């Protein structure tokens, strides 16, 4: 029969249309503006309408989600911000669009470079959010952010002040990665301490023998 295919197709749309209302009844008003509702609508079991009403509703981003990088600082005892970056320049070298600019600082007395960036600028409009800087930073000092709502009218260039975010914040957005990295750092430090202890012991022994 001519038109059978069209009717079959319309049946599909009708089913979808009805499904939305059936789902609404099933969820008793909890389908929208609740965390479970959002999770369900974006899962494999979603049925009927599935759109998220941004900005009233927001999809939670997964841990690996990456947006503009930031610099991690550890909080000192008196609220001091201890930056992890040592201005080694690996992030600037690996950056594909070359949007990271670092000025290395020098010791005022000796004039030799010290591990602390004097200036750290990311041209956010050029950044392509590839995440290579965070991936290859050996000091866990630069990480990718989760905050994607940074649209502005002008040119967005972040300097060191704007890029700094605390290690606590980092732990909040990437708890699993952070715990892995912390364990690795701890193991490294312990190995270093053990080596130093062994060296000290050896030196002591050598001194004793002499």
């Amino acid at each position, binding site marked *: 029969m*001519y*038109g*059978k*295919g*069209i009717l*079959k*197709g319309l049946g*599909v*749309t009708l089913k*979808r249309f009805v499904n939305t209302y059936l789902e609404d009844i099933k969820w008793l008003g909890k389908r929208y503006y609740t965390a479970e509702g959002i999770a369900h609508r*974006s899962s*494999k079991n*979603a049925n009927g309408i*599935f759109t998220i009403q941004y900005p009233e509703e927001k999809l939670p*981003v*997964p*841990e*690996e*989600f*990456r947006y503009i990088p930031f610099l991690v600082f550890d909080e000192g005892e008196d609220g001091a911000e201890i930056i992890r970056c040592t*201005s080694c*320049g*690996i992030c*600037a*070298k*690996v*950056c*594909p669009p*070359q949007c*990271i*600019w*670092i*000025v*290395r600082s020098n010791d005022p007395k000796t004039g030799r*470079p010290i591990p602390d960036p004097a*200036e750290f*600028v990311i*041209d956010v409009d*050029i950044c*392509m*959010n*590839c*995440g*290579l800087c965070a*991936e*290859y930073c050996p000091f866990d000092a630069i990480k*990718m952010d989760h905050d994607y709502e940074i649209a502005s009218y002008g*040119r967005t*260039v972040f300097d060191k002040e704007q890029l700094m975010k605390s290690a606590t914040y980092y732990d909040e957005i990437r708890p*699993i990665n952070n715990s892995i990295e912390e364990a690795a750092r701890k193991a490294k430090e312990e190995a270093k301490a053990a080596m130093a202890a062994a060296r000290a012991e050896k030196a002591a022994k050598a001194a004793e023998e002499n």
Partner: protein
Amino acid sequence: MVTPAQAPTLDLVTRFPEGVVADEREGYEGYLVAADKLVEVATALRDEFGFDYLSSVSGVDYIAEEMLEVVYHAYKTIGGPGLVFKVQVARKKAEVPSLMDVYPGVDFQEREAWDLMGINFLGHPDLRRILLWEGFEGHPLRKDWKEAYYEADVKPFKSRWPEGNFFRSEEKATYQANVQYPDKFDPEKWVPEGEDALYGALAKYEDVDNTGLKTDHITINLGPQHPSTHGVFRIATILDGETIVSLKPVMGYLHRNHEKIGERNTYLQNMPFTDRLDYLSSMSNNFGYALAVEKLMNIEVPERAEYIRVIMAEMTRVQNHLFAIGMFLNDIGAFFTPSLYAIEERELVLDIFEIVSGSRMMCNYFRFGGLARDLPAGSLEMIKGLAFERLPRRVDEMDRFLSDNEILRSRCVGQGVLSAEDAIKYAAAGPMLRASGVPYDIRRADPYSIYDRFDFDVAVRYNGDIYDRYIIRMDEIRQSLRIIQQAVEQIPEGPIQTGKPQYQVRVPAGEAYGRVEGPKGELGFYVVSDGKPNPYRYHVRAPSFINLTAFGPMCTGLKIADVVAVLGSIDIVLGETDR
């Protein structure tokens, strides 16, 4: 033509003692053919040796040796490894005979090589610039060509560290100083002769005036801003009434010279740039590029990483085809209901990409010798849920929704036919080739990665019309789901990276061509290394671009309204077409 089974074993040097020598440079393969013997050798390759499919044409500028090299990659559509042959010519007088008469599929690729590399293909009927505009000066892929905002030959730029005093790029390359013109060129006074050349290249028809009425040719431009082109793409046509007499695509509006950028980048820095080629299927692009560089570096990929790569590449195919079907339906007038149904499923696949790689579209997930990171906890379960439960059901629903629809069928069945011979001749790839009855799938014909372990069918349809190009995408989604189902069951535990992750890889000198069966067709990366941290030459064989070669012939004789349907069934992405 000799049937492939009886084809003599390949020894081009014996067959052509004069004019062909084996390429014996370290790390290179294939044959060097003398320019004056090229057409003869190519004809013999096609007719005697069975290499009926010329997939890629690219140029390399060996500036130190004062020569340009044209590199051809040919394959047999019955499967098996390929053949590389090259022609070397002097840089100052870069003239190579065109292969248009032997392999018409080189049309756009030769134009591209002329445009970007300045290689003059003698005998090409329409050798115009293709990606750049007519007033452009020079050939940018030549090694001595520098852009107006040139900073250094290669990245990383010295200005970024340790004395990285920030300036904005637009301060250095200010408005109007960021373009280069030929001497005494005034853009204000320039009258584009290019248009005449374009319209002149369209075939005319003969006015048969037996009614006494005056007839005239009508030239119609669709685009560059046309909703059916999914971007900025222009189609110039000549019409006889409503019927297409001749049609030429005009592209390059999104051109950024991806290959020049690639040659400035280090090997790793290129990875995120490949995402931006065909931005719907970045995982496949990563895959092809990683394969090419791994071939050069001669490294293996751990088992687990191979499985994850296959899962990701197949999920890419699923979501790309869903999107292609949805957008194709949009083009032929079924506004947004089918495309939103398709996008709903696609979003679920993108969710997985986001969980795994950190980004929905610009995945940047592959590394040389492995992957950026392992699958996060729980993601494999999500993939299983999609591959076993949701997607098979939803694809069936999609099929029920659309495939029998009488309006769709009457628009598509028997329209825009591309025969199997023509598909091979015009180097069409992917679903387009298979919908024309050529069961050529690189995953089967020349298996890479671990595709030889999976049980799947090469989807093939035989009519070569628009409907077959639509329905074959449904078939391919089902086959991809089969592969994913097997892969998630078999995936082993283990490392996902060979050696330590490195940001500066050591790539020995040589050449390599890595190709994958991307969702749109054969996606190839031709990479030449000179042992330095940056690729010496980086060429992309873009399926969206080359599939358009058959666009004109397919449309000839159709009504103007069907052009949109034909274009939709090719499934192009302008990010890849224009590069």
